[in-house]
């Protein structure tokens, strides 16, 4: 019996998780443990050495890429550890990346795509204990820790499952149970005089559920940020160098840069990647209280963008003082997260610069020269760091629970697609039921297990069966 336990862990799935607290540090770690850990690392890591070929306890510089592509997610340091000297006593890989949870999720997601399973709360510790890495005397402590983590995860998940979401998931479950009851009744009661729902109805219902799941998947927070990026809006009075800053941040000539004030009358947007944080940059028209109707329209738009921004870069000309328009602008952005960017730092006199520095003492500010591209890296760092703070506000645990939900919903969707395919190919009902059970079980992971009894109940309430 003891032997069972020793060999158990190595038979298990390979698990992955973000093992640093979310949004609280400049660095983050994704940990992968289990038999397939090195194989999985090989699939998503590009460096000089393949992780599976690397000696134990060595660190490798490289990048994590999207599975089967060369699309870079982040520069990382990857540590390879061979058993038994690892935390879990299993093959273990740790990937250190920038601390942004966007990056960490992307890496975790790739690990998942490459074959890892999301770890359950406390599962690394559980494996460490089962494999003898943690002293037997600590059993109670380990048990308590697993319980605490499970409870917390459950609490977060529940807090998330209020209202609309729970309503929708429950309705998917009801629909799936109904469809399954319609199939199972034909399997288990072939001689009955029944009128089960026809194929067209079931296909339509499956499409409905799939559509519903797609809609839900769209609403997941980290999905939105990963897709749309952090909205960073550049504002400032005319001719302070907003467009030059945009170009410098993009490292390409995108906006028209001329010495004539008010050239950018429209809002220009561009996608960028700041240390792995997807960013959407918005360059706005110069902020000036003006009578020009075209410019006034531009100002209106600028205000609109400020309202939607996740972060604002307020560009100030270091060579001149703040004017009336800028004081007005400062009021507009006061309540939003912003960084003051002192541009043209090379042109400003020592006197004017120190005055501005005093003025912005309590704000986050960066000194740059956009034209010469000086101080830009520093600014990018500052924005990426802000993104991390942004996460913290969004609550790491909630994001994590979202990630689990999303994972389950994706599996459910896959089951539905397979079932649909089998149905279209006219396979026998028990094969269709197999994939539908997978779809149903995945939803059950979020809102609670569905058991055979639920399907039987539906059969007996909807169909007059039995002799």
């Amino acid at each position, binding site marked *: *019996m*003891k032997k*069972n*336990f020793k060999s*158990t862990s190595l*038979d*298990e799935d390979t698990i992955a998780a973000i093992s640093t607290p979310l949004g609280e540090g400049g660095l983050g770690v994704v940990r992968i443990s289990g038999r397939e850990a090195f194989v999985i690392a090989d699939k998503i890591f590009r460096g000089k050495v393949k992780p599976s070929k690397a000696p134990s306890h060595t660190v490798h510089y490289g990048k994590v890429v999207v599975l089967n592509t060369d699309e870079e997610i982040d520069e990382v340091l990857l540590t390879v550890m061979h058993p038994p000297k690892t935390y879990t006593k299993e093959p273990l890989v740790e990937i250190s990346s920038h601390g942004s949870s966007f990056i960490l999720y992307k890496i975790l997601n790739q690990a998942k795509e490459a074959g890892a399973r999301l770890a*359950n*709360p*406390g*599962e690394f510790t*559980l494996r460490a*204990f*089962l494999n003898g890495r943690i002293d*037997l005397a600590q*059993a*109670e402590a*380990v*048990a*308590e820790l*697993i*319980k605490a983590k*499970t*409870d917390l995860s*459950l609490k977060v998940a529940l807090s998330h499952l209020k209202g609309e979401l729970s309503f929708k998931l429950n309705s998917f479950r009801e629909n799936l149970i109904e469809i399954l009851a319609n199939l*199972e009744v034909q*399997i*288990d*009661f*072939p*001689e*009955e*005089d029944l009128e089960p729902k026809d194929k067209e109805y079931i296909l339509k219902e499956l499409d409905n559920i799939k559509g519903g799941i797609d809609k839900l998947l769209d609403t997941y927070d980290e999905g939105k940020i990963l897709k749309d990026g952090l909205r960073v809006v550049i504002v400032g009075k005319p001719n302070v160098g907003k467009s030059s800053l945009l170009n410098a941040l993009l490292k390409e000539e995108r906006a028209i840069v001329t010495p004539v004030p008010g050239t950018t009358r429209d809002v220009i947007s561009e996608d960028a990647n700041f240390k792995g944080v997807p960013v959407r940059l918005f360059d706005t028209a110069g902020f000036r209280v003006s009578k020009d109707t075209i410019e006034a329209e531009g100002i209106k738009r600028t205000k609109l963008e400020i309202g939607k921004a996740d972060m604002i870069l307020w560009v100030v000309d270091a060579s001149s003082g703040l004017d009336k328009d800028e004081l007005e602008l400062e009021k507009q952005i006061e309540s939003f997260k912003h960084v003051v960017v002192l541009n043209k730092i090379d042109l400003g006199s020592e006197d004017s610069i120190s005055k501005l520095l005093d003025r912005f003492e309590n704000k986050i500010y960066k000194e740059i020269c956009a034209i010469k591209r000086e101080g830009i890296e520093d600014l990018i760092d500052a924005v990426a760091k802000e993104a991390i703070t942004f996460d913290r506000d969004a609550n790491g645990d909630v994001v994590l629970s979202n990630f689990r939900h999303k994972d389950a919903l994706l599996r459910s969707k896959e089951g539905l697609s397979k079932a649909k395919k089998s149905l279209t*190919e*006219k*396979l*026998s*009902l*028990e*094969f269709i*039921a*197999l994939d539908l*059970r997978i779809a149903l079980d995945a939803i059950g992971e979020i809102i609670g297990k569905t*058991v*055979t009894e639920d*399907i*039987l109940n539906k059969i*007996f309430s909807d169909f*007059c*069966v*039995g*002799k």
Partner: protein
Amino acid sequence: MITYEEKFDIIVVGAGHAGCEAALACARMGCKTLLLTSNKETIAQMSCNPAVGGLAKGQLVKEIDALGGEMGFITDKAGIQFKTLNKKKGPAVWSSRAQCDRVLYRVYMRESLENQKNLWLKQAIVTEVLIDNGKAKGILTNINSAYLSDVVILVCGTFLNGLIHIGLENFPAGRAGEFPSLTLSDKLKEYGFEVGRLKTGTPPRLDGKTIDFSKTIPQYGDENPKPFSLKTKKLPERHYLCHLTHTNGETHKIILANLDRSPLYSGVIKGIGPRYCPSIEDKVVKFRGKPRHQLFLEPEGENTTEYYVNGFATSLSEDVQLKAIRTVSGLEKVEMTRPGYAIEYDFFPPTQLNPTLETKLVENLFFAGQINGTSGYEEAGAQGIMAGINAVLKLRKKPPFVLKRCEAYIGVLIDDLVTKGTKEPYRMFTSRAEHRLVLREDNADQRLLEYGYKFGLVSEKIYLEFKKRKGIIENEKKRLKKVKVSVSVFGKLTEDMENHKRVSLAYALKIPDITYKDLAKIDKDSKEVPQRIAEQVELEIKYEGYIKRQNQEIEKFKRLESMLIPPDFKYDELTGFKHEAKEKLKDVNPISVGQASRISGVSPGDIAVLMVHLKKFLSK
């Protein structure tokens, strides 16, 4: 009290479908076995419809047979019509069913029992299980005779405090025409067992001479049926018909007008009935929109004119039954030979059992069959043989024999019972088996025969035949994968095939419309193989993808199943569990982490915590 001079190894109380299998298994494994029945004329009585098998039940019978049980063999001998159900669906849900001659069935089963070495068959009414120091040690009969043994297997069907209802009349009985057992369950209750109450019902029997069959639809059996049992060489040449007819609005009107005389609707019956086997009054009340209900007229046997009206289970009063049934097409002038009735009986909620079917409360006392809250001959027989085998293993201090859910319907059945209990009479459905694609009738021997042979329940001859068959199947599968043919020999090509010039025969067989027989036309080396083998080769190749997928799931499933929890593992002092989970775990006392994970109210988090404590416990 007179004590019988000889002591037995095992006493089996009850000679129904569970009792016969239990007693035969014990005796065949070499134990001195006493089988007691209250009536030697009604051994292996089919109290309900005269048929064996059906969906998921056919699988159970084949499993019993592969383990060396008797039910399939007797069914083959007593069968009067054989049919495979669900033939239009995939092979995993094909199920065999046989209509049987009720009298022949019990005659043949009694013959098997009487000719079995090590088996004593006696008529007696058992009133008490003798328990000494927490251990069963024999039984006491109503005439104060004691029989002593090391193990007692209780298989009393619906006899425990059985109460028959016909209309508002009711009387104690075991089943129609037989004595109930009135003290046995009370004594066990006194001892601390929890007792529940269930109900089941049966339809009236009709005189076939008074049925106008021309107004009904004949139901034929299969032309070339396959036997249930590996022991059967040839099925009897009996091809009886069943007949289909329907109730109508008039029937329903009569039933609805007389519900005040139904014990079910007037609140007289307290026990919970099976939803999959509703009475006709239930069907009419719950599905008022349904204009008619199917009734199958099933012959009771060769030497009788009696018919069984499947679909018309009822406990309405006799006059109402007759009035209602005479509205049915073909039954206008029918004579009822026996009225339908409902019976309420005691059962012991099966969570009081270990997966070996031994009770947790009393050592060496085993329960099997309807007394555990199941319904059906096949479910009973399956438990009977498992209880018998485990009783012998217990006596011999050998490890228990517990089938996994991924191995057999029998595993699903017993695991469900002892882990979740049941609120209504439990019947097997294929949907209860999560691995049903691999739990097929055709491979029951591959799944279980080795066990049966190991226990000495399967003969050397059957075993060698099996080995040979298995070899042929494997070789033929390999050959089909190796032999390649040009795709041009196939009339129409699938999209996938267009990319190939030559494909293997196995590849071709996976195409939905192509059968093993079709292959023979293009396969020069094909040899005639027996039907059983051809069928198995065909479907194992055809459904290889799904079978593989299911096998992967099974591998995962087995991990938790193989983490065994020792019986002396205690939950009381342990931390980290939710309160509810701890209570449930204590209650069920699962034998494996896998079983624990199926207890309702036990979460994956609780399972992780359980693994931690278990590791510590086992390392001591």
